């Protein structure tokens, strides 16, 4: 049946189908170097509190030393009750969480149940271990299901840890310092949000790979509150002069106009059924 291949593990060993394509592509780039993937150089953190889980992340994506995106979203949707923060290679975290989300939706539709956090963790662990660390995704999964409030971390090689609070990314040590100091079991919602905000803020100030705004996602039995941005960066662009150019500043060297010859052959209208 088509749905059963969702849980089928593919054939053992590495899949080398793309190696000849990659070798051919390498020759096409200047200097023989394929473009480097964009990494998120991040601070992400998660905390379990009395009624659920709070996840937090910064919003800077860097491409080696240049900021590529000042407002990137690092908290990804997995299921209505499960969200995931991702650090590492941006494309890997995006695609891995997308695939996971699709698989869990199929499961939900198939069985009529809400997915559990442990299922998401098991699928991720299986996939990342199979790729032996080639997928550079460091993920923090948090969610609330019928068995309680859970926070897990999955590493790029497939390691899993279940913890009450943690942080990942290049700013993880700065954030962990705040979390170790301030964490208590069964905190209230506002306390937990403040703790996560301070942890991400510490990462933003100490780590060059993290910066800009802070996003927070609160998951409880009642629902999800995805606050983006929770805190806007206090450093506004305060340039004094406006740098505007008059139309006609760029010199036009040549102009060539190609007219498209179009004839109306047939016109038909089909009403959309919006009932």
């Amino acid at each position, binding site marked *: 049946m088509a749905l059963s291949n969702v849980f089928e593990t593919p054939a*053992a*060993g*590495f899949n080398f189908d793309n190696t000849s394509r990659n070798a051919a592509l390498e020759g096409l780039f200047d200097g023989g170097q394929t473009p480097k993937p964009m990494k998120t*150089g991040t601070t992400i953190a998660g905390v379990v509190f009395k009624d659920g889980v709070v996840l937090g992340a910064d919003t*800077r994506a*860097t491409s080696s*030393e*240049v*900021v590529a995106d*000042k407002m990137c979203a690092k908290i990804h949707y997995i299921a209505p009750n499960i969200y995931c923060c991702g650090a590492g290679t941006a494309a890997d975290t995006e695609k891995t969480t997308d695939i996971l989300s699709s698989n869990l939706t199929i499961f939900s539709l198939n069985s009529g149940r809400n997915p559990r956090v442990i299922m998401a963790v098991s699928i991720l662990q299986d996939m990342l271990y199979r790729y032996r660390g080639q997928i550079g995704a460091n993920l923090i999964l948090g969610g609330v299901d019928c068995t309680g409030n859970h926070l897990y971390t999955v590493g790029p090689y497939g390691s899993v840890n279940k913890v009450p609070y943690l942080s990942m990314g*290049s*700013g993880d040590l700065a954030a962990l310092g705040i979390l170790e100091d301030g964490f208590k079991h069964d905190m209230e919602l506002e306390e937990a949000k403040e703790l996560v905000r301070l942890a991400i803020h510490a990462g*933003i*100030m*100490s*780590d*060059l*790979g*993290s*910066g*800009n705004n802070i996003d927070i996602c609160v998951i409880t039995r009642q629902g999800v509150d995805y606050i983006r941005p929770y805190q806007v*960066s206090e*450093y506004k*662009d*305060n*340039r*004094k*002069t406006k*740098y505007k*150019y*008059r139309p*006609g*500043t*760029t*010199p036009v060297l040549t102009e060539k106009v190609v007219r498209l010859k179009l004839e109306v052959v047939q016109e038909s209208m089909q009403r959309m059924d919006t009932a």
Partner: protein
Amino acid sequence: MLSSHTFEDPGKMRDYHYTGPVEHRFSPYSFNGGTVLAVAGEDFAIVASDTRLSEGYSIHSRDSPKCYKLTDTTVIGCSGFHGDCLTLTKIIDARLKMYKHSNNKTMTSGAIAAMLSTILYGRRFFPYYVYNIIGGLDEQGKGAVYSFDPVGSYQRDTYKAGGSASAMLQPLLDNQIGFKNMEGVQHVPLTQEKAVQLVKDVFISAAERDVYTGDALRVCIITKEGISEQTVPLRKD
């Protein structure tokens, strides 16, 4: 069985652990970040630098300016490896004193630039990992900027950016000061106020996109009255 063996000739065991001698490399350099910028006007010169000292993804200091005053009319901006920046400025200071004592006069900006070029080339085969830009007034009192590469090649410019965000700043200066790539724009000579404002704006933009630039901006304005300094805060994240 182990997947890797299916791709080998059957019966041949590959040794996956290298047990021979291993060469460990120690790199004598490290990159401490920072951006420097110098602009020469009709009767003034500006040397500006950010004050962040970093290594890898960490910050060593938020208050480490990269402009060093050499004489009453010359300031040098050095970015790159901080250890070499400190040593190089000490050497230049010593040479300035020696010149003063033997010739009974202060070195001019052009002379300092020529001397720095020979100092840097003297270490051609173990270079000072420093990107230098000298800004000052020449003998006629006009603004002068001399830009260097790590081994001593130099030339006199009107404006130059060096360091980690140089690739972001230089095109902007080419357009706003050099009026490049623009048509039908009046070539107004640069006033001191406009130049200072431009330098501040340009660093604010660089701090947005370069992770190694930020914290604060130190601007040194050199005129015949002397050297005045201004500090402007930049992004700290």
